[in-house]
């Protein structure tokens, strides 16, 4: 039985699934344009990612291994699912788990081919997950400490923005975004567009349609992470979205201002500055809520 509320839910879901890649692709287009401008170039048109996508989709399908293809679909599906979960205002941890499912799937895809570059890329992607996963989970814990629930719905139910209580955690998303978007200094597993020793790391053996699907998953993931950042100022959501775009811009800026670091530096930075400071932020909340200064 389809009640109006379920109908609305379906409508919103479909809307999210359609709009997210469009917005994500566009944001990547803007990213490339902006990067070009930072480098004193004109850069590609903003819709360039879509040209790339359509072209890739229509290329001859080649692959090294059939099993590598399955993981692409799981990767994309997980990215979509985690976005839907976010739209449904579900459990933050489950959203992150689903995101991780997609990440693991991509890694497995890289491993499934006997290719040095994709395998080393996968090893490094694992390290990247090791770097950003804790920060994300800590953010979820932060949400919980402030709202008393892991459900995203609780964030919206709360009047005041989370940013006031969780400023450092919000900032740690610069690191998360940087890693997720494969930006310098953390583009160690498969650089976005700069070249590196791993060719294209774990994406080396994917081509054509499969690369396009991975690209699309990337768009969903971008929107997902931006969406999570928006939660730091959920009422009104526009402000949150502005905040997320601001962090996005910061990430692009950093990308152009630094060299790529090695995986050891990445782990050190993310665990000390990212996770470490996030923990301090959480500790502060523990103390404050213990003192009864903030509810939770």
């Amino acid at each position, binding site marked *: 039985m389809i009640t109006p509320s379920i109908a609305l839910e379906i409508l919103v879901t479909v809307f999210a699934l359609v709009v997210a890649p469009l917005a994500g692709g566009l944001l990547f287009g803007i990213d490339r344009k902006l990067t070009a401008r*930072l480098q004193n*170039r004109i850069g590609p048109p903003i819709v360039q990612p879509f040209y790339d996508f359509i072209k890739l989709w229509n290329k001859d399908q080649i692959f090294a291994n059939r099993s590598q293809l399955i993981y692409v679909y799981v990767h994309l599906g997980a990215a979509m699912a985690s976005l839907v979960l976010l739209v449904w205002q579900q459990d933050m941890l489950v959203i992150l788990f689903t995101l991780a499912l997609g990440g693991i799937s991509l890694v497995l895809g890289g491993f499934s081919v006997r290719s040095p570059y994709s395998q080393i890329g996968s090893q490094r992607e694992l390290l990247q997950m090791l770097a950003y996963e804790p920060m994300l989970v800590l953010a979820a814990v932060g949400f919980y400490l402030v709202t008393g629930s892991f459900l995203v719905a609780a964030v919206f139910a709360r009047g005041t923005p989370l940013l006031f209580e969780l400023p450092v955690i919000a900032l740690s998303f610069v690191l998360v975004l940087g890693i997720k978007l494969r930006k310098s200094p953390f583009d160690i597993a498969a650089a976005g567009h700069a070249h590196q020793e791993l060719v294209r790391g774990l994406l080396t053996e994917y081509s054509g349609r499969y690369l396009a699907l991975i690209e699309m998953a990337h768009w969903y993931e971008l929107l997902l992470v931006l969406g999570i950042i928006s939660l730091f100022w959920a009422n009104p959501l526009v402000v949150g979205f502005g905040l997320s775009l601001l962090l996005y811009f910061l990430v692009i800026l950093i990308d152009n201002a630094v060299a790529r670091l090695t995986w050891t530096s990445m782990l050190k930075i993310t665990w000390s500055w990212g996770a470490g400071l996030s923990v301090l932020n959480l500790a502060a909340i523990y103390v404050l809520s213990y003192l009864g200064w903030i509810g939770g």
Partner: protein
Amino acid sequence: MPNMLSNILGNIFARPATRAYPAVRRPPFSGARGHIVFDTKSCGFCGACSRRCPSAAIVINRTDKTLTFDPFRCIICEACVEVCPRKSIAVDSQYRAPAYVKTVEVHTLPAPPEEAPRAAG
């Protein structure tokens, strides 16, 4: 990072350095070595150019009075220009356009140059 930041932020507000080629074409520098042109009217088919050419791009047939020039072999070094006793060879500052097929120019005494498909090899 702060060191680079000032550079890239400066770029954002500056005009891109990009030349709008092909929309806007810069005129070549005077004296640019674009491509080689022959004036067969004055040529004596002496073969000096052919002997000097480091990439064997010119073939002179003295009996037929033909000069065969392979633009896809020429490295535009100007050696032939320098060596030609009759100043029959000159350099044009415009570079040669890319092509789908390689052709050779066959110059004969009175007729204008004609393009012929390049012999294999």
